[in-house]
């Protein structure tokens, strides 16, 4: 019983970490699908989300719901502004230039946070006040329940939005063929802005969940989950939204199980090893579609 129980608990740990990776990975994958660029500043949006929540709820003492909504809005607006300032002028530039700009943006966000909030970690109590539940010998903490719940809701809502609404259809059209979409009367600029807004909004949600779990604010807190989520997006097939969700959760579970049953030190190596194997066997990722580059 004990072994089964412990495996189940490790699976839940993996599911919780994986949910956060998945929420972040969606942002990477959506932006890649539409703007054909890797937005390396995306991880730092999580950090901005965590600090924004701290400012709204802890410093300005706003009610929790207002603070959460404002946090998501702040990150969405930040996402749009980043795109307008840093990426839009480079839309026809070589992809290397865009990549380096994204890395520069990431450093900018981190260092602005460092300037404002200083390097000393700030303790910030979890905003999640849900008590855990006990299922037999399994214990699910409040944070876990909320994390899983919010992730499922966000994923269902996003899937419905992309598949059932006009704006969602416009997004898919732009990602398929930007030129043709423009000729069909779709505003490419508005669609790209919307994509950045949604991706950054989800990153804000991930930031809120992340900070509820770890309770320590640091200017670099977004870097590692950002990289892991990027790996998750590639694993699932970059450009594919279900792929990002799936990739994130798989990554979280592999990480948790290898830490628990193989080695704490090797867990990252195993995660990246799985990525290498998947890419060797299926270069477009688990759920990605292989596209033939037209010359």
């Amino acid at each position, binding site marked *: 019983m*004990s072994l089964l129980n*412990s495996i189940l608990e*490790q699976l839940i740990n993996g599911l919780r970490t994986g949910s956060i990776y998945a929420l972040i990975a969606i942002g990477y994958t959506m932006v890649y699908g539409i703007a054909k660029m890797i937005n390396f500043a995306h991880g730092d949006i999580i950090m901005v989300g965590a600090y924004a929540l701290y400012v709204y709820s802890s410093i300005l003492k706003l009610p929790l719901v207002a603070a959460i909504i404002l946090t998501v809005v702040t990150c969405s607006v930040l996402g749009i502004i980043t795109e307008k300032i840093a990426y839009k002028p480079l839309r026809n530039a070589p992809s290397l230039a865009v990549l380096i700009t994204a890395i520069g943006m990431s450093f900018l966000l981190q260092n602005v946070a460092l300037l404002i909030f200083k390097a000393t970690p700030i*303790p910030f109590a979890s905003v999640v006040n849900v008590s855990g539940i006990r299922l037999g010998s399994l214990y699910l*903490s*409040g944070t876990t329940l909320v994390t899983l719940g919010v992730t499922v809701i966000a994923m269902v809502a996003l899937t419905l939005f992309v598949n059932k609404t006009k704006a969602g259809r416009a997004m898919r059209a732009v990602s398929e063929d930007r030129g043709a979409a423009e000729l069909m009367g779709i505003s490419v600029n508005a669609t790209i802005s919307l994509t950045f807004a949604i991706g950054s909004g989800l990153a804000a949600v991930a930031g809120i969940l992340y900070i509820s779990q770890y*309770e*320590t604010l640091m200017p670099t807190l977004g870097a590692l989950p950002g990289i892991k989520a990027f790996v998750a997006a590639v694993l699932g097939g970059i450009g594919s939204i279900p792929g990002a969700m799936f990739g994130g959760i798989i990554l979280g579970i592999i990480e948790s199980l290898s830490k*628990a049953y193989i080695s*704490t030190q090797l867990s990252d190596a195993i995660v990246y090893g799985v990525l290498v194997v998947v890419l060797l066997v299926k270069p477009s990722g688990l759920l990605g579609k292989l596209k033939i580059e037209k010359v």
Partner: protein
Amino acid sequence: MKKFGKFMVSAVAATLVVSSLTGCGSKEDETEAPTETSAETDDASVETNEEETTTSGETAEFLIGGTGPLTGPNASYGTSVKQGAEIAIQEINNAGGVTVGDTTYTLALAFEDDEATEDKAIQAYNTLMDQGIQVLMGGTTSGATIAITDLTAEDGILQITPSGSAPECIQYDNAFRICFSDPEQGTAMADYAVDVLGYTKVAVIYDNASDYSAGIAEAFEEEIAAKGGEVVASESFTTGDTDFNTQLTKIKGTDAEVIFIPAYYQDVTYITKQASDMGMELPFIGSDGWDGVLATVSDPATVEGAIFASPFCAAVDDPNVVAFVEAYEAAYSATPDQFAADAYDAIYTIKAAMEQAGSTESEDLIAAMTEITVNGLTGESITFSAEGAPNKEIKYVEIKDGQYQYVEE
């Protein structure tokens, strides 16, 4: 071969020139610090007037060298050591200095940055010797301290490291240490857990990328086994990790009665919070790295009841500690940590050795080291063994009602 030899000679010569140049450069950079200015200017006068002053029974200056990282990722350690030593020196000088025979010495500190690296430590030590230091209070980190022990032993100078906790730091007869060694701390915590707290099944979470954490954990596990207890889980992590759910889940599946975490306070913050999230109610014990944890936890209840070994705790209500903390905060607007307290005690140890020896020669000071008793911040009645290890009571701090408190013996 001959050519190579020639090349080596010129390379060494070039290095020497460069190092002496950089030595001068850094000296000039640092002349803004008041203590160092005085150390340098008076240094010459000590040399020239020594005979005169000792015979006339007037005052003279005693120059103490210090090394430690003032820049780089470990800068906080060296800064604390330098500042803690400065507080002690100021106190001693304000109280009239150190009387040895007919002469009253005022103390001065010359501190060189070693960036916690071996090669910089050797450079820093050579620079200090050129300035004419009479004893060395350093290094601050274990690796850098070990790098200069050969040189100090050769020069026969008294070396007291405030915080080099690796056993090799005091391998020669001229070297002494103020802090506990890592294995000592692990052993002491194991004894405490079994003998005083009565636990027999323990779990350990340690950072295996840190010599400090791994060193304590290893000694702890050995001692627990020797005491007839059982280590039911030994989980490791890597410096910078934030997620400990996996390790905690594994411990949860065992029948551990207590969790031992030999780590720094930021790691402890994550571990204790995640344990409480998982509904774990096991008590925690820890190492001196726990000092500072109350400032980083969001809810003190997560560490309530935890007990850790600590040579020094700034928040403890002890008159000597309070006076030191006040002086330190007034001078540097920062709370002193154990590194500052170790350095403070190191300076008082040097003072005691001077008084006991009745001399300022290192040879006499080293001989006097085993005869002195120092009442310091990090321990009452500290004595030193000929091997260089301090003999002091290890203190335990308990977190009670969200406050640090020494455990009543």
